[in-house]
């Protein structure tokens, strides 16, 4: 299954273990052109037919699909089966040196102009590794970047890494009390599509 879904250069996860562990401000990695481009284009195309619900609170404003576990769409179903497969979970476990269970969360998100997600750490029981599959590309000036904060006194302090969404990049980071991050406001009339969730352990 890995051979079908992942680009050839990424098939050995242990090559990236050190990079994941050494990245700052906390363990993370960005893997450009990670999936088979043809397959991910199908996912991106299916995404535009998904129903999304607007979510709005003090912390965020975006639209979200239901958990992809329950999707009836064949393209999503295949993608979900891959992400939750033993093979891929084992791949992520190796890359991140983390013991993972079979459980994953997986939803589609779309951020339109003025949408955002303010700083938080993602901690919730069982979440070990967060992942973001980027299904659209935005320029830096468009907003929508995933920003990582360093911390002082266990509080987020300064944005030290900022990743503009790039189609077919996979981002993984370890969920810890210090994994502070945000999604910057989208300031262009563009849409930021992702599939996002967590590997549990």
């Amino acid at each position, binding site marked *: 299954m890995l051979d079908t879904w992942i680009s050839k250069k990424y098939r050995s996860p242990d090559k990236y273990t050190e990079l994941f562990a050494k990245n700052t401000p906390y363990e993370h990695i960005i893997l450009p052109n990670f999936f088979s481009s043809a397959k991910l284009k199908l996912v991106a195309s299916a995404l535009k037919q998904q129903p999304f619900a607007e979510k709005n609170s*003090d912390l965020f404003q975006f639209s979200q699909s239901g958990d992809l576990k329950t999707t009836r769409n064949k393209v999503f179903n295949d993608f979900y089966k891959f992400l939750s497969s033993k093979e891929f979970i084992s791949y992520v476990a190796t890359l991140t040196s983390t013991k993972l269970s079979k459980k994953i969360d997986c939803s589609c998100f779309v951020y339109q102009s003025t949408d955002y997600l303010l*700083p938080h750490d993602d901690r919730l029981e069982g979440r070990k590794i967060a992942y973001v599959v980027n299904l659209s590309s935005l320029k830096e000036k468009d*907003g929508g970047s995933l920003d990582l904060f360093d911390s002082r006194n266990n*509080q987020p302090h300064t944005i030290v890494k900022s990743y503009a969404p790039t189609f077919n990049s996979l981002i993984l980071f370890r969920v810890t009390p210090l994994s*502070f991050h*945000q999604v910057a*406001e989208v*300031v262009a009339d563009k849409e930021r599509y992702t599939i996002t969730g967590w590997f549990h352990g």
Partner: protein
Amino acid sequence: MVNIKSWLSVDYHRKETLAAAASVFLSNKPQSIQLRNIFNDQRYTTFIGELSRIQWKQKYDALTLRCSTSLLPLELSQFLHSEDFKLLVSIVTGKIIHQTTADLCCFGHKDYTLMNDGPLPNGIFFQLGFTPIWNDGWGGYTSFVSDGEQLRISPTANTLTLVDTSKLNRFTKYINHRASKSKRILVEGIFK
């Protein structure tokens, strides 16, 4: 000694106006009221002049808030802490007011406040608005929450809003880029 009659619009000198306001406050859920044109034109114009000269200091604690604050202009501070003003708030809300805390805040693009972990302290929350032009689509409004939004205060000019905060939490919605350089200026605090 501050004589607040020289500050307030003539309407609010009348007992009948305050009694009517008290009735509206009690009937609203949550208990709340917005008093429009609270200051007379002369005072309001003076405040706007003073506020335009203020040096703001940015406060940023990513998990809590991002906004600018400054010390209250002296006269405004005297007004808020005056016995006459406490009496006015007591008449409208039916609560005995002992003390006041007040902060002067300015919100622009990227600013926000998040909800606290628990509800606000019991008391009467107040907000004085000094923002003439605003669009709620820019964010920046104050939302009172308890199992969903119960009340929203949109940025306004020359208003006094009073809210009984029992069991409510509160946040200021993130201000998006469509606000451009517009600022929301307000004084807010709690009467206890």
